[in-house]
């Protein structure tokens, strides 16, 4: 059924820090109850907003804070909220995207399980900012425990008067629905999520029209990530200026990074944006270094769809701009580390298999291309690679990149292109010698 994820966090550090705020109470076993949440200052931001802030003020505050979408795209949240047309007579909807499925990412899960009210409060403030009276949270179907906790939190929020009619006597009504997905990575893509929420098949929609203008039921809709929304109450409470001082100039605030792979201490770590990647992997307090003290081979910095970093590229701060300079992306902040005994072809096979499996199948390049790519790479990995395979792979990748309805196609091919660029000798070795170049033992020796 549902199980509680016993993942390591740096909650202790956050508890005593003035800057870290998402993980402050995340190790408190009662934090998910409304009582404890309120004791820790919860719902103060929501009360403050309803007591006297205009929706435009809320949007301005979040804009000024520089908060960027934490789901992977990094789009400024306040700017996204301002896209909702003011003059539209249609109802507005806010949807929290809790379909966390990017391989390696498990940060939203922790927030939902252990601090669900933070998410609800953030959603509420966002809903108020765009004039929404019915908000949804779309939780991935496999997250049984999160769903239980969110539904429980929702019930408590209603009972305590934080949701419902005429909240705090302000005259504002707000309802919340917890919706469960059916198990599809593609439903983390906002238009497919909206289709799924409407009861349709989770296929992506072409944009334009953008969800902010025509989203759920063709009404203006804002879709935000769990972590983005959980950050909002802190911004309201402590001000945009405080938030802007955290992180870097263009990447403000803190982020939770999910560190996994061949590290001694995998876990979720909240750090300021701009935090050195090397430190996160090697420092005692965080990753603790490579498993078995082996040499590092490569890092996926932001989830399965981001290009790789080689060991000489990891002297980089974890923020949006710095990683782009290294030809990669911050993405969802899932850092996957692998050591010298990992076969790159095998890694790519796992990734392309994932994307092929999760492709929604609507547009031709992604649907057919990922399948074809998987077949070729599987053949190479099994020792049956042929001359010309790499050229074919590169050509197919070129036919998929930028040619699809949604970024899943791009996500599928960018790691492949990156791996071919950075480890081409390994691929060629694999094809010529019909075996891995490294002494790789799956998975944990």
């Amino acid at each position, binding site marked *: 059924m549902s199980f509680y994820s016993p993942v390591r966090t740096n909650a202790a550090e956050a508890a005593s820090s003035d800057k870290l705020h998402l993980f402050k109470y995340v190790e408190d076993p009662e934090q998910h109850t409304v009582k404890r949440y309120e004791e820790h200052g919860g719902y103060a931001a929501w009360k403050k907003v309803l007591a006297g802030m205009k929706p435009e003020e809320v949007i301005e505050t979040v804009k000024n804070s520089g908060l960027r979408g934490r789901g992977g795209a990094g789009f400024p949240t306040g700017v996204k909220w301002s896209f909702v047309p003011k003059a539209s007579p249609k109802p507005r909807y806010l949807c929290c995207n809790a379909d966390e499925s990017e391989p390696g990412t498990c940060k939203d899960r922790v927030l939902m399980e252990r601090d669900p009210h933070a998410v609800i409060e953030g959603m509420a403030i966002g809903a108020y900012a765009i004039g929404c009276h019915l908000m949804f949270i779309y939780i991935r179907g496999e997250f049984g425990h999160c769903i239980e906790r969110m539904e429980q939190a929702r019930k408590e929020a209603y009972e305590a008067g934080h949701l419902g009619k005429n909240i705090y006597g302000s005259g504002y009504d707000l309802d919340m629905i917890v919706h469960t997905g059916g198990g*599809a990575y*593609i439903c983390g893509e906002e238009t497919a999520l909206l289709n799924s929420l409407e009861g349709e*098949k*989770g*296929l992506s*929609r*072409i944009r*334009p029209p953008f969800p902010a203008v025509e989203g759920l039921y063709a009404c203006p809709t804002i879709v935000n990530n769990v972590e983005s929304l959980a950050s909002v109450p802190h911004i309201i409470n402590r001000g945009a200026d405080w938030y802007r001082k955290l992180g870097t100039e263009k990447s403000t605030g803190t982020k939770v990074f999910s560190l996994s792979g061949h590290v001694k201490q995998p876990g979720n770590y909240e750090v300021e944006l701009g935090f050195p990647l090397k430190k996160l992997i090697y420092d005692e307090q965080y990753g603790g270094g490579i498993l078995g003290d082996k040499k590092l081979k490569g890092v996926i910095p932001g989830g399965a769809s981001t290009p790789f970093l080689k060991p000489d590229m990891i002297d980089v701060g974890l923020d949006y701009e710095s990683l782009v300079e290294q030809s990669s992306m911050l993405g969802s902040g899932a850092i996957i580390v692998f050591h010298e005994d990992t076969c790159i072809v095998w890694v790519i096979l796992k990734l392309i298999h994932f994307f*092929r*499996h*999760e*492709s*929604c*199948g*609507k*547009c*031709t*390049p992604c*649907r*057919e*291309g*990922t*399948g*074809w790519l998987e*077949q070729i790479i599987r053949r190479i990995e099994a020792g049956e690679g042929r001359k010309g395979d790499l050229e*074919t792979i590169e050509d197919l990748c070129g*036919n998929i990149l*930028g*040619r*699809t*309805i949604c970024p899943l196609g791009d996500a599928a091919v960018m790691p492949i292109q990156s791996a071919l660029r950075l480890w081409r000798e390994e691929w060629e070795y694999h094809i010529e010698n019909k075996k891995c170049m490294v002494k790789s033992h799956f998975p944990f020796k």
Partner: protein
Amino acid sequence: MQKTTNEQLAEKRAGGEVTLTIDGQEITVTKGTTVLEAARKLGIHIPTFCWHPKVKSVGACRMCYVQIEKMPKLAVSCATEVMEGMVVHTDSDMVKAGRKAVIEFILANHPLDCPTCDKGGECDLQNLTFAHGVDDSRFAFRKMRFTDDTVTTTFDDVKIGPEIVLNRNRCILCYKCVRANKEAFGEYDLGAFERGNITEINSAPGEAVDNPYSGNLVEICPVGALTNSDWRYKIRVWLTTTTTSICNFTSSGTNILFWKDPHKNHIYRVTSRCHDDIDDGWLADLTRYGYQIVTSRERLTKPLIMKGGKQVEATWDEALGHIHKRFSEIKEKKGAVCISGLAEPNLDNASLYAFQKFFRTVLRTNNIDFRSHYRYLPETPDSMFTALCAQPFRIRDIDDSEVILVFGSDLIREHHNEYLRIRKACNFFGARVYSATPYAVKAADVATLESMYRPGTEEAFLNGVCLAAVEDGLVDARVGKEFQGKLKPGTAAACAELAGVGVDDLKLLARALAEGKKVTVIAGEIVARSRARETIAAALCNLGRLFSLPSKGQMAVLARYANSVGAERLGLVSEPFAPVKAELEAMYEQYPECPARTTDKMLALMKKEEITAMFLLGGNPLEMYPDREFVSEAISKLDFLVACDLFETETTQRAEVVLPLCSWAEYAGDYINLEGRVQRANKAVNAVGEARPGVEIMTALARRFDRPLFESDVHMQSEIDRLLNIEDVRPLPADFVEVVAESPEIAKEYPYPLYLCDDPHHSGHLSEKSASLAAFAGEAYIELSSELAGRLDVADGSSVRVESEIGKVIVPVKISEHLDSEAVLMPRNFSGSGVNALMMRKKRVDSVKITKLDE
């Protein structure tokens, strides 16, 4: 070139003009047009798979790429709206490479079925591969194949409906079928399952794809994934030629193409011809598969004469001579007043006119009619009901209507084409649809409000809407006051109570009609077949007058059958409309002076043996007219009966002379649709056996009487034109009419209101002879709600005895997807079912009781 629905929408929004350049040519279009549509206007045809002019674009196939300057990535032209100053290249190297890639991707797993695939020769994939694809494939893996319990080979052909065969391997996942099914037809029996490259299009679990529009899915499929059983393996498309024609089963005048082999005199299939103002390219299955009656082996091929109790084959000479002899005898002995004629309203103008002229100038009688499916018609030609049937109506104007009221009409059984149009108006143009019927209808799935009034309380409902408007101050107060006194009961609440609906429903509808800037009101068969049609018509006229409908929209009782409008306008009624009668009197030396009788009156007189002879040009009143016993008795008392038809029926079996009639595909004819539009159906094949068109039969018969009807074809056409050129303006009442609403009681012994209707796949008595249509529905049934079935403890398919006051039949049960009250439906299209035995001509609401067979 078809106009797309998106272009229609852009025109409506009138957001200004945009000028852009495509391949060096400048063009100015309305804002909201897509790049693809703009290119089409320039004659540049950008290749597509998943684009369709009448369905929302999804940008799924990625074949329509274009390169737009200043945009780094290729753009999908089907979904990109034009912008001022855009410079588009539809054939640059980047675009060419992109298209090649898409074709390569599609061909990767596509089976090389071309030699055995029905679509070969008209396949989008074949054509676009030749035009834009690669010669060779780099795909060096085993192609993916669908297999499951029923399919064990790579030749995956699954019958997913009575007509449709699915081959999942060939599907290129353009999703046009599921999108059209859902958007255009509102059906969900076909869906896409799984995701990614194992997505399969298939029928919904446990269901067959058998909706009334399923044939369109085959036409819309760009490859051979969905194919028709009736075309399967019969002929290659390049060996056929086409003939343009018009559907003969519905009144919309849907434009069709016959596909035939010119050497074999055989029709292989029917496809659409897309008339933007009539059918948008969609055909009802009835239209698509109905042609099979033409090629049926059961067609009558020779005249028959009853000799010694048996019908024996004869020559035309003998048959016509016999008819001449008998008619002359009867006319001499008792006068022309005892001869009557009924023509079927699906015949062409020439046949109907010749029939009318024969009776009026040769036999010299007014006992003619074409409405042999109705009961109890109003006697006078200027009745309000007849006027409402002749009101101007344009299908195209449904698109522009803000408010559409569908009153007393089960569109899916009567007006398949108009249902699709209303769906389009609702889905694309934001029209609000209001449905008011005595039982739950499928067409109400797009309705903002679905009202179900008690059976037989149509006027109460309409009066209630008018009174609600007056009471809520939605109309001019003076007008309201003058009007209120004429209605009984006199308050909206009382009407609501009588009609069994909530008064809020009436108020909502009143507001919609009052505030709507363009309104369409459609009344249908449930009104037309009602004994009280004149009262209902009065109520409708009042409604139209109160809400100023003629000036801000259209209101009509929609005609049915391929040429009822033609029959009416060519004077094929006992008492024609005054201007028509005047013209006929002018054209004919002596217009007959005998009294005019409608069908019902004629049948009653036959019973009394005052009418002793009848000539039927098509039609099967024994099985189609309500109250079978009444008709049977009337016909049996006839001294002389001539029946012309395509097939043997219970009526022809009783005829002294049977003449084989041509189908509409076997000769050229003009037909007038419900809009009054005259359209020509061309000859596709030669007549079967010795069958002849109605016009030839009548003119040949007239010659026997030494009174030829026409000097020449030109002469005939000129007379027809004289009648058609009469401005068919039927005035509605100049003032509000008094309407007293009835409250019919349903006998406790026979508690379930019965509506005799057409099966959605059938019309009239001929359609069952189409093998494909019979596969959808081949025998009569009683359709009831699942709740009622539960109460009666009957299962789907089990037989029950259905009894009314005057008759009983035994039929199987069909559990309805839509019905949710006690009303039951029975189709009357199936010979031998005898369902018309249950109907009572003079009752307002027919009702029956149902018992399980073993009781």
